[in-house]
């Protein structure tokens, strides 16, 4: 079944030409960004702190360093998607 035949509410948000889809995508990206902040710089650090204190490494780097770099990259990618899919189409 082609994408065009899916009901409106089930279609993936890939064409942000109409304001409603853009608004929805903006909301989703905003929530993801907040989630990245909570996990990256907020209480999410507790998930890895003990491992980091014990000298744990991720990808050959100290765990906390990788954690910070990773979540920062996630935030930057979200901003990039927001620019490409939402902001660019706003007047």
């Amino acid at each position, binding site marked *: 079944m082609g994408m065009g035949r899916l009901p409106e509410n089930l279609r993936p948000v890939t064409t942000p030409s109409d304001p409603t889809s853009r608004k929805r995508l903006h909301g989703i990206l905003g929530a993801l960004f907040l989630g990245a902040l909570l996990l*990256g710089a907020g209480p999410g650090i507790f998930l890895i702190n003990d491992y*980091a204190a014990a000298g744990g490494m991720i990808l050959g780097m*100290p765990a*906390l*360093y990788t954690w910070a*770099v990773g*979540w920062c990259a996630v935030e930057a990618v979200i901003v990039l998607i927001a620019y490409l899919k939402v*902001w660019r189409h706003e007047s």
Partner: protein
Amino acid sequence: MVDLGRTPLVVLALYMVMLLVLGVMGYLRSKTSEEDYYLAGRGQGVLVTVLTIMATFFSSAAMMGIPGLIYRDGTAFLFFALNLPVSGAIIYLLGSRIRRMGQRRGYVTPADMIADYYGGSRVLRLLVALVGFLYVIPYIVMQIKAGGYLAQRLFPDAEVLTLLGRDYGAFELGTIALSILTMAYVLVGGMRSVAWTDVIQGILLLTGMLVAGLATVVALGGVGAYFEELTKLPAAARSMPGVSGAWSPWKLLTICIFASLATMIQPGQWMRYYAAKSTQTLKRSALIFAVVLPGCFLFGVMVVALGAHALYPPAMVDGVLMPHPAIGVSPGEFDQVVVAMLQEHVPLLLGATLGTIAVAVILVSVMAASMSTADSNLHALSAVLTRDVYDRFVRPQASERERAWFGRGVIVVATLLSLWLVGLGKSNADFQPLALIGSLMFVAIAFSCQLLPLALDCLFLRRGTPTGAIAGMISGIMVVFLFTPFPTLIFGEDITATWTGITRTLGRLFDIGFCGFVVNATVFALVSRFTEKLPSDHVKKFAAEMES
């Protein structure tokens, strides 16, 4: 330490001449109007906008204060970098609305817009100007101080000059040179000169950050060896809350959200949104900022600071956390980590000539970081005091020419005041407000954060009342004031002991600006509920212009 000889002096001289040339070019292109002096005719394109926003954002804190905190505390403070994409997003989300209204209604300062929305409130205009002042002065002080530190490092054998019974060593001469030069090109060319010099300074700064990180990794034997070295960090430096115990996740989270917002709505940045050519300019600037800056931070200066922690670990001396003697000799000298590391390792790595030139260029980029923030803040303060105070309350009948001269006078007085405060801090070790660049930065940002509830209400919510806004701001400013050492200096330790205990606890848990924001926003909302609303047609008209 490797002797850099006269190379830094030559590089510094070239850099300073280039700034002055740009200052004069800005002057030649300028028109006589106030709007041109403060906003460069509202026509700045993407390159200038993004680099001037970055350069204003990256103060001496970026090259000294923040690496200093990472050197002191280890990986815990790395999470500060997560505020950079937040700040980038703010450039578009808030900046585009601010720009649109500025363009339509001819606003120049933040207070122009806020006071206009809240029915032309004169009290509110003064409060917004006060917040601008409270943000700008510590920030200028911080930049000038960094110039002094840098001069001390670059010219350790400089002779002490005695003038009118006072001694002027490398620190004092460095602060004076940075202040005078910055003041000169801001005075001459206004926003155009500031923005153009920011372009050069921004490029220097970004390059300097990355080269510094690269040099450190190479000096330690490559990427693998660098991270191997980091495994030797003590447990406290590898985890939260860091060696000094200062960084809880909640504190870092509130810094990443509220300090970012506060920094991006401080007067200098706010005026850059007005000055942008179009919304498209701000969209692109937001993207570049959010993607480029975290890379420069995480793979640049932060790498240097962490490497330094592994090589030259700080140690407790008589109960006080002190930098390694190779970095500094007092708790206030953690800030010198990038400078000390580069001076030590780069010449050994690249050879005497090339290494010395590279170090000199990177050290000049540290100076660029300071100057690019000092110039923007001086320029913004001039606009704020001229338009929001002098023009409204002192001499409303003043001509544009008179206002321009008053604005230039503000720049001179603010520079001299900041220079005097730096001298006071240097000569009095007990004068704690000037102790560490990093802590000074958070106090300044906290004051700016008190503009946030009003900005959010004015740009998005539009439910507040003028009385609510005034009550909220006064409460927020007072709360932030309680976090500074000033209440103890003014009222004495006995009277303020309880407050100091509370603020210390809160300050350990959260960002100071966030604490002020919570009180500010709560008071704003409560008072707005019971006080006279703005006329609905005024609010609707404002909203329509903003949304269209």
